[in-house]
């Protein structure tokens, strides 16, 4: 058992993470009271495994998943994977603790049953497991599988309160945006395969060279990544997703869903950096997200909305940093994710706790709570300070790296960096101050400690990171090396000098304070701007597309054919068109031939004429009984035709069948009262319809005619088996070749034929014995 003695860290981390939802669901089914406890315990185990794995480092596991397609189940716990796995499990643990206090309250508000907790924790932990699997995947198809698994988990979590319409639309929107964009990831992977014949990322990194295909592939994958990271213009699903219970929002925004997007950029960064145009596009998209997210965050009143837009804005930073590229850019982006995840989840939990305590979710309705909820205030103050990039928090370094990176890319980017940081300073300060400072507002109820402790822990971590940054720096450095593809070092320290970064940071504090204090002047115009954006923005586009699609669907459904005759016509007419097309396409020379009519054929000719004439006679409106008799006339004249064609067997059977069919036909006609039969006959169809029917019938006839004539015009095949049939009949003890074919050579056909009769018999009996089958 070498496996037990020397376990593979990559596998251990993945298995423990995958077991978490499984164990939780099983224990939850057993007794629903177990659910929260099991969730906390299993996430703790997953976290422990992730930390252990990160410490042991660099393990990989690979096994063939599908030989035919060359897909491997290939995972690698490298620096990048370690960092995200630690984040996902660590924050997952705190979220689980928080949720164990939050969900009973939520249940109470929504009238859910305890059993629903199983669903909640199950999907929450599945989310975590999918994240862990995603970050370790080295095969693009495997990566796609985990990628969509996060989308599935988030879909059910966002739609957790499915009785609310708000939750339903939010879940659908999140699924549509992230699920459909994930197809981009898939197509990108297949494109890369078509160029390099492998799905394996390490192999791709080795062999990929700048080319149009690679650029296209990378762009398609990035569409998926950016949509998941809620970057403009596909950002609109994220604020809607706030309809989910708060622990979900906290997780979604910090370490799971949205982080998956930037993770993917980091994962395929060696391919991304092949084309500078892609990098420039990242800067533009990230920049737009920074501005849009920041402006909207400044105007929002609902806690979770402020935070949601702030996330869009702050992941905008990360994307911009990836776009800036280089050592600083990559390092900054990676480090930023850690700092942001810790602080942002704390703020979401704060929002949830405050709402539970006061019953209000708007900044306008609360204020001055620091006295009533001191621990929460302190914890979230530390987290806010982190996001505001104040010194002695981990957040200071994230901006430091950002500014350092921007420094290399010219003045414009520098100004932009300052502006973005200012916005984020302002909206975070507005958020915290709005809740905890100012005049006292709102009635506070005590909340369970489990809603406050995680905030405190995360706040403490934020400050700890500002003082002893080494563990975080190490994690980020390992990760950034993987993304960057070469050695890289992150140096983080406080410098008391006038280097550009410091000046930029100082100007951010100053400008941020100004923005905060001048709120009453800019608030109105910005709000108006946001409203306009809402009216013409991508969310509007999404809604219109959905609405339009439903309307379009309705209107083309009105054209759907609804009666039988048109349904038949829609088979005959297109067949006519296709046959016409085939006639035009194929060479017509020698296709149609006349063969001579010999004098011996005259009786045959006559009988064919009779058959065709009686066929036409049937069509003429008449009594049903007469119609049945004319129909049998067709059959009998065809029987004569068969006899003339040298087929007495067929003639005999045709006559017999025609007789018994007429008996059955009339037998059924007799069962239907005459007035009902006459009813139809007496209605005269409009002349136009008759004409149209005639045209359709003509088309049908022409189809038959063209195909039949062209086939008959072929000289009969020269090689055929009928000679053998005739020769061998005596061997089969028969002298009527047709009968021998029916009973011996092709007896299997007859076997099938009598089976058809038996089935028809069964059917007729059950149909005719009205009311009960047989």
């Amino acid at each position, binding site marked *: 058992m070498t496996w037990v003695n020397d376990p593979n860290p990559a596998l251990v981390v993945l298995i423990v993470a995958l077991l978490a939802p499984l164990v939780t669901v099983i224990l939850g089914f057993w007794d629903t009271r177990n659910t929260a406890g099991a969730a906390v315990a299993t996430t703790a185990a997953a976290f422990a495994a992730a930390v252990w794995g990160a410490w042991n480092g660099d393990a990989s596991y690979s096994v063939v998943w599908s030989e035919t397609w060359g897909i491997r189940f290939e995972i690698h716990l490298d620096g990048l994977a370690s960092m995200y796995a630690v984040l996902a499990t660590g924050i997952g643990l705190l979220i689980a603790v928080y949720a164990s206090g939050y969900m009973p309250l939520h249940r109470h508000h929504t009238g859910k049953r305890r059993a629903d907790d199983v669903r909640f924790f199950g999907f929450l932990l599945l989310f975590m497991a999918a994240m862990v699997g995603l970050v370790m995947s080295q095969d693009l198809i495997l990566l796609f599988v985990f990628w969509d698994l996060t989308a599935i988990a988030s879909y059910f979590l966002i739609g957790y309160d499915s009785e609310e319409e708000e939750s339903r639309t939010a879940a659908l929107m999140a699924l549509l945006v992230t699920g459909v964009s994930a197809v981009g990831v*898939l197509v990108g992977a297949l494109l890369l395969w078509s160029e390099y014949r492998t799905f394996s990322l390490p192999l791709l990194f080795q062999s990929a060279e700048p080319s149009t295909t690679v650029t296209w592939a990378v762009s398609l994958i990035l569409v998926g990544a950016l949509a998941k990271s809620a970057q403009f213009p596909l950002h609109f699903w994220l604020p809607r997703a706030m309809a989910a219970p708060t622990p979900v929002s906290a997780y979604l925004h910090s370490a799971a869903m949205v982080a998956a997007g930037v993770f993917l950029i980091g994962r395929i960064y060696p391919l991304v950096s092949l084309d500078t145009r892609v990098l420039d596009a990242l800067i533009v998209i990230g920049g737009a997200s920074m501005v849009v997210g920041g402006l909207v965050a400044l105007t929002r009143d609902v806690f979770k909305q402020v935070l949601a837009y702030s996330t869009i804005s702050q992941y905008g930073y990360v994307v911009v940093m990836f776009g800036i590229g280089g050592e600083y850019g990559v390092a900054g982006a990676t480090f930023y994710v850690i700092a942001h995840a810790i602080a942002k989840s704390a703020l979401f939990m704060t929002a949830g706790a405050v709402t539970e305590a006061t019953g209000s979710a708007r900044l306008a309705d609360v204020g001055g709570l620091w006295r009533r909820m001191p621990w929460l205030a302190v914890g979230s103050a530390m987290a806010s300070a982190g996001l505001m990039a104040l010194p002695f928090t981990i957040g200071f370094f994230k901006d430091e790296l950002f500014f350092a990176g921007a420094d290399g890319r010219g003045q414009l980017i520098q100004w932009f960096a300052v502006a973005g940081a200012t916005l984020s300073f302002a909206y975070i300060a507005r958020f915290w101050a709005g809740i905890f400072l100012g005049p006292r507002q709102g009635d506070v109820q005590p909340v369970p400690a489990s809603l406050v402790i995680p905030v405190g822990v995360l706040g403490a971590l934020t400050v700890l990171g500002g003082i002893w940054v080494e563990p975080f720096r190490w994690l980020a450095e390992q990760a950034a090396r993987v993304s960057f593809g070469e050695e890289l070092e992150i140096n983080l320290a406080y410098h008391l000098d006038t280097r550009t970064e410091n000046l930029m940071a100082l100007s951010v504090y100053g400008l941020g304070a100004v923005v905060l204090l001048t709120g009453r002047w800019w608030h109105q115009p910005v709000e108006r701007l946001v409203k306009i954006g809402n009216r013409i923005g991508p969310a509007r586009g999404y809604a219109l597309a959905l609405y339009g699609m439903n309307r379009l669907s309705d209107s083309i459904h009105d054209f759907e054919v609804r009666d039988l005759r048109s349904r038949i016509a829609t*088979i005959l007419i297109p067949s006519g068109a296709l046959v016409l097309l085939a006639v035009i*396409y194929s060479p017509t020379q020698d296709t149609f031939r006349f063969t001579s009519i010999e004098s011996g054929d005259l009786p045959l000719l006559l009988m064919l004429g009779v058959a065709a004439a009686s066929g036409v006679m049937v069509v003429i409106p008449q009594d049903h009984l007469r119609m049945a008799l004319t129909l049998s006339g067709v059959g009998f004249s065809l029987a004569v035709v068969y006899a003339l064609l040298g087929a007495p067997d067929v003639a005999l059977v045709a006559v017999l069948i025609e007789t018994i069919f007429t008996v059955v036909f009339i037998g059924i006609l007799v069962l239907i009262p005459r007035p009902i039969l006459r009813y139809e006959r007496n209605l005269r169809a409009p002349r136009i319809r008759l004409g149209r029917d005639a045209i359709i019938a003509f088309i049908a006839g022409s189809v038959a005619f063209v195909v039949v004539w062209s086939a008959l015009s072929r000289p009969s095949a020269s*090689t055929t088996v009928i000679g*053998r049939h005739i020769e061998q009949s005596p061997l089969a003890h028969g002298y009527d070749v047709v009968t021998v074919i029916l009973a011996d050579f092709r007896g299997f056909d007859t076997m099938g034929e009598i*089976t058809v009769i038996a089935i028809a018999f069964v*059917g007729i009996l059950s149909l005719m014995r009205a009311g009960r089958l047989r």
Partner: protein
Amino acid sequence: MIVLPLGILWFGAVLLAILDGTRTKNALLAIGLLASALLATIWLGFDIVANGPRSMVIGGWEQGVGITLSVDTLGIIFATLSLTVLLAALVFETANRVRARVFPALVLFMGVGLTGLFFTGDVFNFYVFFEIAMISAYVLASYGETPRQFRAAFLFIVVNLLGSMLFLISIAAIYHITGRLDMAGIAAQIPLVAESPVLLIATLIFVAFSTKLGLFPFHFWLAPVYTGTRPSVAAILSGALANIGSYGLLRFGADLLPRELADGAPVLIVLGTVSIIYGAVQSVSRHSPSEVLAYSAIGQVGYIMIALAIGGEVGFFAVILYAVINGLNKGLLFLTVGLRGWLVGASFVVGAFSVAGVPPAAGFLGKISIFWAAIEDDAWSIVFLVFLGSALSFLYMFQLYQRRFWIAREDEVESSRLPQVIVTALAIGLLIVGLWPEPLLDITDHAVSGLLDSPAVGVSP
């Protein structure tokens, strides 16, 4: 060995035609027979993958004189799929209580027809088995015995009979120009015949099978029939019977008439495109689940057509894979139609993810193979089209899912447990295929190489 599945089904069907199928013990007997036929098919499949196609001339005559039965991997795949769906529907109906004496017998008869036509190497024999399957389907469509089912059955018969007649005419024409009825002989003779009559014949065959599949514009019968019949019957029609269309197009198109298939590729692409868009857009605002699924089926046919038009290794691979997965999806989803309960919701959502092509449900394999075929063909418009279709499938499947399973209604009664468990088992099957796709991919690969090696190699003895 080759006759074992057919024999079990055929004798079983005759036996059950005499017994009263509403009795549980008889229905269980039918289930046992169907299951053993399925196992026999799978066993045969292992043998064929290992030792190559098997064939037998009935009556011991020389090939061409007698009917050739010949089984290759392609036939095995479709037979296994169809029998699986039939079995699921039969088990489901048994759990729900069978309402008609003849239901189990008819399901077995349909099994006879389908297995026979997948196993035969003779075009006229194909027609005969085709009619066995169709006539069982005609009777099954009226199962349930309300006016609605009678209407659906009538419509179904009329339209499909028209298709059958066109098919019959094309078979006679093939006989006239080649002098053969065995597929191997036809495949050998066809290239010697001038192009024009063959193209016309191929057109008729295409119309016949497209009508069966419900390709635009031959689809107008499909939605009312699938909504009008009982859920288990709709599952059979869309999951088992419709396979005739995909199999027939592969067998007649790729195997017997490759030249004509290549000629017709542009038409296939145009109709496939329209079908994908039309089916998907129609599904978006349909109300009843079976209607959404019916239109979705029309869209899925479009993918099969496009893959068929692309052809070659990747194209045919996509056709088979997509047909198999689509059959399983539709089988599962139609069975959930009348049911309520959380297990049903969970199973439905697995099916929905499968239709939308989201892993780990099996559907993503089909989506990958279609994209793959399009990319290898450098057909960017098709890549975009498939993308659009898959986006719309997200929309209609999940609008439906949310409407049905997320909005509580007062008149809801949870269905009994057993049918729920059955659909859950099917959903788990879809997940297993998605997570461990290699067996399916491998056998599909095998079938494709059988199709491509040389024309009709699968049908020569």
